[in-house]
């Protein structure tokens, strides 16, 4: 009995099993949890984390790290609002935001891969630089959206589900496909698993890493636009601490910080666990201060489980 339980929890699908069990328990015990309204609210609350986690997964899987995502989300949201206010065209605003996000990512990638600067340090630096840009551009104040049509990005619904949730779902599918079914995805896992082996196999490691970071910047811009639309303004201090939530979600989902291991389903589950934990604590009126402790504990437990899993699965390692 205990061994089969252990097998189940430490197996390939262990996280999914735990998640399903937790979901059932929470649905039965927490009032108002399993309602359409709450479910949509929950999903909407994890859109930013979920979207950014898609590319963070690639970043971590290739043995890299990106701390600048929170700043990039805020900055590109700000750019979207300011550019569309200035030009009167939402499309131009969105394009400007996407371009800015991609440029930040590209810069990260070039510094890290081409000049071989540690990713942690590089993105720590760009995190501050980009946050600075957001503050400078807006003079430290929130910038309201002039054209109400901008709100529609997050207010509009398709089949009763808000657009941002569709976008997140689409990203999950697209990046899941990219990871598992394309050469790009396989190369990402390969350079994370053994960069030297990948180089010897003819993978252009430098270019791959630059691409991954550029993609990360672009995706951050999408998240930034959606966030700005939801909070109806560009906020220079938006999404602070997002990088840690996103990395937590990825690690919860079994993405290895040492690179080489990642699954999209894992990341989706990781994102949902983060969302559910927060949602449940809100429903139970648990004070926000305690939520930090709980979130940290969840992360620690997940990592410990993951460690046990890899020890159990690899006697020779």
């Amino acid at each position, binding site marked *: 009995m205990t061994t089969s339980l252990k097998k189940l929890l430490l197996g390939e699908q262990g996280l999914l099993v735990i998640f399903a069990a937790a979901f059932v328990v929470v649905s039965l015990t927490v009032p108002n949890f399993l309602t359409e309204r709450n479910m949509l609210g929950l999903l909407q609350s994890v859109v930013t984390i979920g979207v950014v986690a898609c590319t963070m997964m690639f970043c971590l899987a290739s043995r890299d790290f990106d701390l600048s995502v929170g700043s990039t989300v805020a900055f590109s949201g700000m750019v979207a609002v300011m550019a569309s206010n200035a030009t009167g065209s939402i499309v131009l605003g969105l394009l400007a935001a996407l371009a800015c996000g991609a440029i930040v990512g590209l810069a990260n990638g070039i510094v890290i891969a081409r000049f071989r600067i540690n990713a942690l340090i590089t993105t720590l630096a760009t995190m501050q630089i980009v946050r600075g840009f957001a503050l400078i551009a807006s003079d430290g104040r929130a910038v309201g959206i002039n054209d109400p049509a901008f709100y529609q990005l997050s207010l509009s619904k398709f089949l009763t589900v808000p657009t941002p949730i569709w976008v997140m779902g689409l990203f999950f599918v697209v990046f899941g496909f990219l990871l598992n079914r394309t050469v790009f995805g396989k190369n990402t896992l390969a350079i994370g*698993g053994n960069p030297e*082996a990948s180089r010897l196999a003819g993978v252009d490691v430098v270019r791959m890493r630059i691409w991954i970071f550029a993609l990360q910047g672009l995706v951050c811009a999408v998240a930034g636009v959606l966030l700005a639309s939801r909070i109806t303004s560009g906020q220079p201090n938006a999404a602070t601490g997002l990088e840690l939530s996103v990395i937590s979600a990825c690690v919860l989902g079994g993405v290895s910080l040492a690179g080489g291991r990642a699954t999209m389903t894992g990341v989706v589950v990781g994102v949902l666990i983060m969302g559910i934990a927060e949602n449940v604590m809100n429903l139970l009126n648990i004070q926000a201060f305690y939520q930090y402790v709980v979130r940290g504990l969840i992360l620690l437990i997940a990592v410990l489980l993951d460690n046990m899993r890899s020890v159990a699965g690899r006697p020779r390692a």
Partner: protein
Amino acid sequence: MTTETVLEIRNVSKHFGAVNALTAVNFRLERGEVHALCGENGAGKSTLMNVIAGVLPPSEGEVLIEGAPVKIASPAVAQSLGIGLVHQEIALCPDATIAENMFMAATNRRRSALMNYAQLERDAQAVMNRLAPIDVSQKVGDLPISSQQLVEIAKALTLDCRVLIFDEPTAALTETEAQVLFGIIRDLKARGISIIYISHRMAEVFSLCDRVTVFRDGRYVATEEIADVTPDDVVRLMVGREISQLYPDKQHSSERLGEPILSVRGLGDGARFRDVSFELRHGEILGVGGLIGSGRTEIAEGVCALRPVTQGEIRLHDKVLRLRRYSDAAKAGVVYLSEDRKGSGVFLDLSIAQNIAALDLKALTSLGLLNSRKERVLAEDLTRRLGVRMGGVDMPVSSLSGGNQQKVAIAKQLAVDPKVILMDEPTRGIDVGAKSEIHRLLRELARAGIGILVISSELPELIGLCDRVLVVREGRIAGEVSGDEMTEEAIMRLASGIGPANGTNLKASGHAA
């Protein structure tokens, strides 16, 4: 045979900082030949292969493919020119499947962005089946070392090559697996593919190859037809001097059977090794041989508590040692010198003095403060005794040559007054001169009564240096050789698990460095 040059190396040199790994070497490879490349460790064979395969750029000289000069800037370029390299070190992604690893290079050259798993696995299985019946959907990390080596070879076979380089492919293979590989190499040759074959094993070179080129100390020495030379000739070219002078005198037979310093009984860790028993006696150097991955390092780590053991007993001078962690072992006088000198043997950026003092800081501190004068005195004393050539004990270890770095690593161990030193590949990557100095040093330490255990992959080193050699195979002591029975053949037989009766079809190998 028509002589048509596929690959030519002209005056290629390669420097790493001040070290000349290759000096103006020349090399020619004809179509459809198997060309052996021989030389001692550090002779520059692997460096040249890395230049050819685009891993390292040459400092000078040119590479010609079918008469046209080419610039091989990356492994991808080499592959597109039809050059494949089977690396000596296994370079695979542990979390990817065998099939994905095998076709990583091919996948990257294809234009399509999508993976076709069904076809990938089918093709991979077809190639793999030629070597061994291994299921290609497994993850590489779950395979034992010898199978990983087969994957590495299978990977090269998937490339459409005209030149295929094997850098010591049989180091981790069993005899049967090696025979399969030789069959494949002959088959490739028949299809007009040119093979460069690097090996230390003369028997393989002489049964497989058409010509042999010898390198020594980064220079080209000679190219001969295999039919015209004997293994002894090749060895003489490789070494360039009489071999017997290389090693210090061994123990006299009268000194044999000194009392045991360290005795190990039935040691096992429940995974990598089991049932390991041996004695290390006063005054002797005990060698430990075996294939890479056979568990040699793990046994040494088990003895000094760097790795948990689940069974067995270790006695030091007849006192049972109960070690829970490495610091206990060091305190008791059993120290370990890692094979990975740069990774875990020395602190490259710290000074020589700080390195030497690292294991025994307590003895040098008073009132919790480090006495740097004492540290200096200790370091100066030990470096003088060991003959470390250096600018001063304040210089960082990174300023020293490999051989002198190794001496500092040994000095570090000597600083704690050890009774037993376990050395893992003590002379790996060290030039010939420094190597024999280290050998002499080890012999002196053994005479002085310190138990010395040397793990080595170099058979000549085991035979030349050690008084007895234990051979490890698959985590067990497969046997022991000493005195006149100590030959490369005897050690290899034990290491690869073939009995002394068969396997005589191999040509006798006088020596292989």
